[in-house]
């Protein structure tokens, strides 16, 4: 149980090498070892979506992947998106629409919404709702989140 492996990976553009317990999941490693506390832990079994982050270009659940599986991977967390400016319009739309209350689901919700927007998703409320149905939000009732995503898609289409 206490066995470790050494992994090297690039997180938000910075490369690091660490010995990690083989049983540790990725989000715990990012939070506890690298101090990237923006990714949140809500259920630890892949249902709530709070730990959604990008691994090698795909949005995945940080709680369903072991840290050792991320050896050699390129990872972007909410902190990385904020630092690089990627999805800045989406974050602004979340603020403008108040598409967050407590903010705990927000990093994961933003990641899933970004996946939809960057994947060419259209401003169809039902399709947006379906795409975001792996991310649990207890506060907003989702409507303002859908509004924000529509705003971004419309805004990108105009520019």
């Amino acid at each position, binding site marked *: 149980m206490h066995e470790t492996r050494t992994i090297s990976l690039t997180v938000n553009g910075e490369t690091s090498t660490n010995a990690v317990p083989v049983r540790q999941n990725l989000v715990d490693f990012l939070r506890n070892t690298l101090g990237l506390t*923006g990714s949140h832990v809500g259920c630890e079994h892949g249902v709530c979506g709070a730990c959604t982050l990008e691994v090698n270009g795909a949005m995945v659940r940080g709680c369903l992947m072991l840290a050792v599986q991320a050896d050699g991977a390129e990872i972007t967390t909410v902190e990385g998106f904020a630092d690089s400016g990627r999805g800045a319009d989406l974050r602004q739309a979340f603020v403008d629409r108040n598409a967050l209350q407590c903010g705990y689901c927000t*990093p994961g919700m933003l990641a899933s919404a970004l996946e939809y927007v960057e994947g060419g998703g259209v401003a169809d409320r039902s399709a947006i709702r379906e795409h975001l149905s792996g991310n649990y939000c207890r506060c907003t*009732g989702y409507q303002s989140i859908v509004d924000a995503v529509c705003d971004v898609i419309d805004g990108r289409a105009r520019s």
Partner: protein
Amino acid sequence: MSGPQTIFDKPNTYIGKSVPRADAVRLTQGRGKYVDDIQLPRMLHAAFVRSPVAHGRIVSINVSEAKAVPGVTAVFTGADFVGQVEPYVGVLSHLAGLRSAPQMPLAVDVARWTGEPLVMVVASSRAIAEDAAALVEIDIEELDPATDMERALDADAPVIHAEFGSNLAWERLVEAGNPDAAFARDDVTVVERRFRFGRHTGVTLETRASVVEYDPSERMLTYWYSGQAPHMMQFILAKHLGLPEENVRVVSQDVGGSFGIKIHTYGDDIATAAAAKILGRPVKFVADRLESFLTDIHARDHVVDGRIAVTADGKIAALAFDDVTGIGPYSMYPRTSAIEANQVLNLTGAPYLIEHYRARARVVFQNKNMMCQYRAVGHPIAMAVADGLLEDAANEIGMDVVEIRRRNLVRDDAYPTVSATGMKFDDLSHHKSLDRLVEMMDYDARRAEHARLRKEGIHRGIGLVSMVEVTNPSPMFYGIGGAPIASQDGTTIRLEAGGAIHVSSSVTEQGQGTNAILAQIAAGVFGVPLDRVKVTTGDTRSTPYGGGTWASRGAGIGGEATLQAAHALKQQVLEVAATILQSTPDKFDIVDGHVVDADGGPPRMSLSDLARTVYYRGNELPSDLSPELVATRHYRVSDFPFVFTNGAMAAEVELDPETGFVKVLNFWAVEDCGRVINPQLVDGQIRGGVVQGIGGAFYEECIYSEDGQLENATMADYLVPMAFEMPDIFVAHVETPTKTSVLGAKGAGEAGTGGAPAALMNAVNDALRPLGASIHQMPMTPERVLKALGTV
């Protein structure tokens, strides 16, 4: 109320404007600070061994193997905390007759619900603590459990606390007029229904969490927690850990959802504080999702037999009901688990003119997790019983459900009034709200469309609710009964040297936007741009004393304290300005961070000039002028036990009789929360609340086996509303400011959760009625709908 009534017309007021929340920006960047983000030097981590049975005597506990695991610092059993922690009992003196047994953070001799903490392991990491917890050996002799609340009072039911002789925790009867005679009249139609409301829970996305640091050199305990009521926790920790109150500091930073889950005293949290004190090292405990389902307070769990009598012209002749509710093995500390039943007694039928009324509630112990206050305490039961009976009765006598409400709702010009249950109401707008609702949803056209669609085999339904909501509670809610829960709140505002203001308030922020609306009020009333306001909440060391945010009190109570403090600070500043500018205070105003002439004109001096003069160059001021430039005001509701709000809501659903699935097509909510400070934030509260109400109505249920095992304690098995199933929700406001404050704000946080289930149940029954079926059980799962239809 006396005060600055003109503040709402000022050019620089932010009250009533949908300005974005300052907090939202950092939360979108991953810069939130939640409890689990805290890392302290030498910090240890706790894990708990919990009872695997609903009722059992602890015969022996062997922790030797667990203690031997490398990295384990300590292992505590219930017995280890005896003498370290003073037991707590969840009773209040104003709930006469309520009884509960003393509780300890870890069960000492008998475990009384599945998931009750028994043993605590403290180790260098959570993983190691869990490894060691798995090695604890506990021998438990199983006892017969009393899980079914409907049988908990039977003569042969196992008695959970032998000293009480039965499982009855509390009972109250409310009676007004002569209900027996009213029901016996020969000109009334009587409708009787049995309602069942399942247990559900809050499912805050951030689970309960605490980090506790104890410094033995100063006997100082610091408790970071994800919670709503820091000063209450300060009292509780001090009392039960034997510390002076001033030696306990409680801090709530970002809170990942609370909804009432995080205002209670949980054994694992108290154990974490006790362990930190004993060990002299910081200890962190973060509940995992399984622990949350097993131990976060559950809500509802009622069976209600209700009766209504209506005359042929639709007047309510009498209303009566009998409520049984199961609260788990103890009444929760310190707010008690009788408040919900009490609310049901007080609020059922409250929007209507009812002369003859009888209500009984029995609150019973059972071997399940504890039930206590969760968002919209008692409201969903009260509203669903009254409006469910009313709509069924309307259909019995062939009257439209809007019309029957118009004939019974208390007139908008009748206030102040007192209800049959003794509740004092003022400033309500039931008729205006209902009219607005009917207009917004295009009621008549929708009814006609449904009739047409029904011929095509499409089964749609409309259901309504007229509701009241308890907000802005006074000392009559908890304080009067001896609870360490402040009913007043305070705000301190100081002028900074740079001309900005700093607001610190005892109400708290859990995402609803408390900090934002305090800033809006302060900026507008005092006269600075919104970005020159900083807000501190959630720290007993640096905020005035107060109750925190629950029962929809943040805006109404904290907001009024902030308004008064901002006004007082402004008077101070104008006095200084008048001295410097050699005039009188009434000649000046503060606009956009500058002192200006009251009758307009260019700025006379900036606030930073004024503040720097006071702080740095006091020599320029007359010696008899000693400005404070800081003002504190406290506020409590004193004329009423609560400031009630009202609303009207409607749901439109489509039923598939083949599968039993119900789709919510539309939802409309009209809310009168008095003065709206930030429409966008209020709408967010309404919509989020409605969606929690939809959860309770259709999805959410803590399913227990007969022997008291929680069978769906994962997020995959316990269904919560997700984006795809939710409708867009249309919100409108009627604004009837409360006269109890200058601000005029009432609460809005619980309306949706309190009202939506009733409207949804009525809508489903409207769709079922032509099929000869009805349902009065929540959640209205497909299986239950099919059973109602008689197809399974």
